[in-house]
């Protein structure tokens, strides 16, 4: 099995490599690495479905193969990560190339060309400044899974002025919404193909982004700007009450700041987004404090608190417009890397609350089990987005095997 997949990837990678390998192949033997993760998942929704055709039980299988080839002492490489999921919801059955890129680093610069995943930001409860990749919205509720984004990324490292990242993003990928049988959806099923673009170039609009990141002692600062088709669709209601949803062209400026002082992490993320149809500011600010090695055996208990603000109010897609997040991260630092994250988000203006729990533990050296729970509690009728999910509290179990 392993040998077979190894061979297949070798062929694929070899085809991709031929143009780039010629230059440096005489220097060193390339190092290759093949990994495969297979995951069994079971999602169980506790309450009776809000909309017709929705189900309660969702057994699912996913796999993620990885291949990398490094040469020139690791300063040049080809990297591939694929993803496939099979689910009872047809829209959640999906595949993606998470990453497939060539990378070269030399001295104070690094270049990546291909599909890649980029993360920006410091906060835990909401990822505002993180905009390069489209969210894989059917994969997880927290939005931390992303689709591979085609790009050319150039990083320039300076001694005194920090790091500058330049991104050329030639293609936009739409967000996938749950299908008819899926949970965590709106009353009407949104087909991603029904959503249009503001730009006449549609998905081929050539987008740009830049980010500056530096640290001064205990301060880590990032400043970013994105100009292009937004990753979040915009829902506009006309006078007849019809919904018009499309991907607008936006300018978004983002700031992320973390101050790391003793056991305190102070965090701020803020964005200002500007489009023809919409202008708004959003902010998340908070802190993380960790009591470490409490029992002398490595038990760490972290406390998290964040305030979330979004000027879009109820139109904000993630429904975090004026909310407080509180949570606790418990890490046992044991051989199995056992950890638990519990938290809740509560709306300051209504009764709406979401509670969550994520726990994971390794078994042996190649297995990992996870438990996730999301509980929607007392969701206010006035919540335009969240009210659709009020019956969608769920438990999720996964078991992963790594090869």
């Amino acid at each position, binding site marked *: 099995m392993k040998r077979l997949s190894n061979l297949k990837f070798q062929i694929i990678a070899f085809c991709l490599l031929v143009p780039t390998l010629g230059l440096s192949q005489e220097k060193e033997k390339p190092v290759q690495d093949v*990994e495969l*993760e297979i995951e069994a998942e079971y999602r169980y929704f506790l309450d009776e479905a809000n909309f017709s055709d929705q189900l309660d039980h969702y057994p699912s299988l996913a796999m993620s193969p990885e291949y*990398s080839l490094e040469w020139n*002492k*690791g300063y040049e*490489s080809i*990297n591939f990560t694929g993803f496939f999921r099979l689910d009872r919801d047809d829209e959640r059955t999906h595949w993606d190339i998470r990453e497939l890129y060539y*990378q070269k*680093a030399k*001295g*104070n610069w*690094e270049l990546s060309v291909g599909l890649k*995943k*980029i*993360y920006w*930001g*410091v906060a835990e409860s909401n990822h505002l400044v993180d905009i390069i990749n489209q969210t894989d919205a059917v994969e997880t509720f927290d939005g*931390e899974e*992303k689709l591979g984004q085609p790009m050319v990324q150039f*990083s320039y*490292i300076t*001694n005194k002025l920090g*790091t500058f990242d330049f991104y050329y993003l030639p293609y936009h990928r739409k967000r996938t919404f749950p299908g008819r049988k899926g949970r965590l959806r709106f009353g009407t099923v949104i087909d991603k193909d029904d959503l249009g673009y503001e730009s006449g170039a549609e998905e081929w609009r050539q987008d740009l982004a830049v980010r500056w*990141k530096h*640290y001064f002692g205990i301060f*880590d600062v990032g400043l970013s700007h994105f100009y292009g088709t937004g990753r979040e669709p915009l829902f506009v209601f006309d006078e007849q009450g019809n919904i018009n949803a499309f991907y607008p062209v936006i300018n978004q400026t983002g700031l992320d700041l*973390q101050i*790391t002082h*003793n*056991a*305190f*992490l102070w965090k701020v993320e803020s964005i200002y987004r500007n489009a023809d149809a919409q202008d708004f500011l959003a902010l998340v600010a908070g802190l993380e404090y*960790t009591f*470490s*090695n409490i029992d*002398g*055996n*490595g038990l*760490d208990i972290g406390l998290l608190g964040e305030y979330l603000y979004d000027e879009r109010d109820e139109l904000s897609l993630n429904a975090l417009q004026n909310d407080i997040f509180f949570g606790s991260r418990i890490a046992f*630092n*044991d*051989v*199995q*890397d056992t950890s638990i994250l519990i938290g809740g988000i509560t709306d300051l203006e209504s009764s709406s609350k979401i509670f969550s729990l994520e726990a994971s533990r*390794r078994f042996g*050296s*190649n297995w*990992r089990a996870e438990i996730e729970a999301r509980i929607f509690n007392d969701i206010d009728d006035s919540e335009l987005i969240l009210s659709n999910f009020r019956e969608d509290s769920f438990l999720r179990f996964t078991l*992963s095997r*790594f*090869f």
Partner: protein
Amino acid sequence: MRKSKFLIAIFSAFFTVAVGFSQSAEERGLQIAKAAEKADEGFGSSIVELKMTLKNKNGQTSERFLTTQTLELTEDGDKSLIVFESPKDVKGTATLTFTHKVGADDQWLYLPSIKRVKRISSNNKSGPFVGSEFAYEDLSSQEVEKYAYKFLKAEGELLLVEQDPVDPKSGYTRRVVTYNKDKGYRLEKVEFYDRKNALLKTLTYSDYKLYKNKFWRALTFNMVNHQSNKETLLNFGEYNFGAELAEEDFTEVALKRVGR
């Protein structure tokens, strides 16, 4: 001119020796620590792979593989990059540490699953490193400024020095370190005493190898916890001193590159 310089050199050498006999245990301890630091000066940078074997009190073992890159700096502490190769669910997890001679270290953690770099607090010095018997502070760069010293005794070529951590967040009241004066002041053994001043752990270095005729590197570290009866063994591969790593190899960009 040249002659007078020579005389000064002779005189100061004599003076140092003379003072050596009358110096306090504190001074002699510090002198040994500085001699050890000096003996290892000039390695530039190194890359080494290692296997960490965790053994619980029933003898059950669990392994992990790591790669460590180190950049030597003289004005401030060293920079290091640690990457996990296994267990596979954490493969690619990496840390970047800037050690400081005075004050808290700067540390960043890379989480490969979401490609996130997170600045983390270096406050947690006494906690175990990935479930092992090594605390974070045992694995960080051993800068002279981080301890107060007291020479205890000499046993032939072995010099025993007590080291008291300057940082109150350390998990130890003291460490008793055995240096080998004839082998470039390499470390042979460290005994760790907990906050109650009870013997907690013993770290033994073995399979020493001399690189470039100057740098001693132990290829085996064995840490035994006397209170829990757990053990952690580190087996190092061959050190690579020829990679000529630079500051750019110890940046957030490099952290993401090595973790992928």
